[in-house]
């Protein structure tokens, strides 16, 4: 594949008499209807030279080396480094976006670094990173780069990781999940009204993506940014925990992330740690085994405990793993319970 996308349909009824047909982008549920020269809501999929192209293909604007815990992944090869890349663009427009300078920017307004999928792999190898994470903005909108980069990584024995809001159509998602090793999907709230008002998207496609990840058998973790007054009530949160137990399984790790004022939501305070702890209790009560609190330095709720005997198996402070008692088999050394995940 290349930057030229075939993930589109011609709207024939609207096309007679035009030099170029009207196209609809079929990558995500927004289905942007584009005339030649227009770009979709994601800003990077542009109708150019007869087709919708992901113009940032091979042109990441963010390249970093991060601990895998930062994505967050807590049950996938702890303490390893992920070579992390992103281009501009996102199909959501969250008022609280933490990476808005990247996700809500036009690609031509940012510096970029030409890096083909093969060069991506070579760079990760030279940095000693056993994983490549497509992250920061929305890897599903620079889909072709994510897909080709993941294929190249897998061929080289590197794990491709996806960090996404999961708002895309099932066809492309299924194709990508054939090559991805693990995904963290961010559920903004278990409420369609929240998605429409705060993120300019909808909930159902995200839930579909989560189910597809589970069906594909890739390692899956779920994160939720808890924003005071908007999605911090147990009434809104508890149904999410119950849905995860029913549809993804009680062993799916759930990360409750602390909100800090960002972008267009500067008027709200950071999430109180007590709110996060209350919601974590709700999630445990709903049946989830692994519930973590993120962005609260040193909180014991960022440790992995055995759900059977309570032994602290992985001790974390921030993104640093201080102790890891799990071997490759992922068994609790105290009681032998198998801890779900992919362990080193």
């Amino acid at each position: 594949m290349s930057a030229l996308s075939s993930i589109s349909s011609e709207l024939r009824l609207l096309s007679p008499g035009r030099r170029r047909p009207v196209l609809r982008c079929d990558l995500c549920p927004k289905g942007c209807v584009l005339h030649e020269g227009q770009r979709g809501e994601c800003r990077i999929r542009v109708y150019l030279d007869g087709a919708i192209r992901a113009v940032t293909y091979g042109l990441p604007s963010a390249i970093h080396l991060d601990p895998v815990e930062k994505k967050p992944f807590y049950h996938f090869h702890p303490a390893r480094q992920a070579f992390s890349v992103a281009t501009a663009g996102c199909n959501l427009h969250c008022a609280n976006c933490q990476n808005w300078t990247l996700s809500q920017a036009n690609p031509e307004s940012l510096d970029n670094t030409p890096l083909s999928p093969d060069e991506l792999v070579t760079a990760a190898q030279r940095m000693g990173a056993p994983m490549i994470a497509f992250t920061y903005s929305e890897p599903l909108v620079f889909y072709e780069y994510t897909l080709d980069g993941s294929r190249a990584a897998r061929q080289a024995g590197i794990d491709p990781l996806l960090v996404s809001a999961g708002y895309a159509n099932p066809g492309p998602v299924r194709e990508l999940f054939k090559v991805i090793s693990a995904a963290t999907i961010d559920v903004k709230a278990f409420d369609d009204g929240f998605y429409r008002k705060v993120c300019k998207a909808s909930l159902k496609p995200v839930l579909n993506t989560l189910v597809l990840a589970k069906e594909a058998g890739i390692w899956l973790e779920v994160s939720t940014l808890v924003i005071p007054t908007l999605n911090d009530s147990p009434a809104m949160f508890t149904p999410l925990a119950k849905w995860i137990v029913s549809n993804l399984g009680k062993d799916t790790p759930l990360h409750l992330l602390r909100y800090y004022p960002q972008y267009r939501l500067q008027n709200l305070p950071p999430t109180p740690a007590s709110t996060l702890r209350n919601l974590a209790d709700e999630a445990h009560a709903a049946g989830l085994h692994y519930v973590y609190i993120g962005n609260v330095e040193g909180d014991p709720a960022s440790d992995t405990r055995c759900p059977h005997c309570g032994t602290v198996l992985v001790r974390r402070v921030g993104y640093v793993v201080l102790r890891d008692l799990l071997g490759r088999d992922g068994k609790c050394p105290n009681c032998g319970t198998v801890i779900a995940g992919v362990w080193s």
Partner: protein
Amino acid sequence: MTRRDWLAGAAALALSAALTGCEPRRGDPMRAAPPNLMALLRARSRPFDLHHVAPGTALAG
């Protein structure tokens, strides 16, 4: 935008929603890409330097 374009866009929205159940957004002039977009992207390209890949970032995720 001409009246014909506007009508075409509105029809496309209704058609997409009816046929696919998706949540279509229409293209509009505000989202028009600059005609020399690829040249602008090339102009902002910087060569990759491994030594400039700093561990960690303020970006989330």
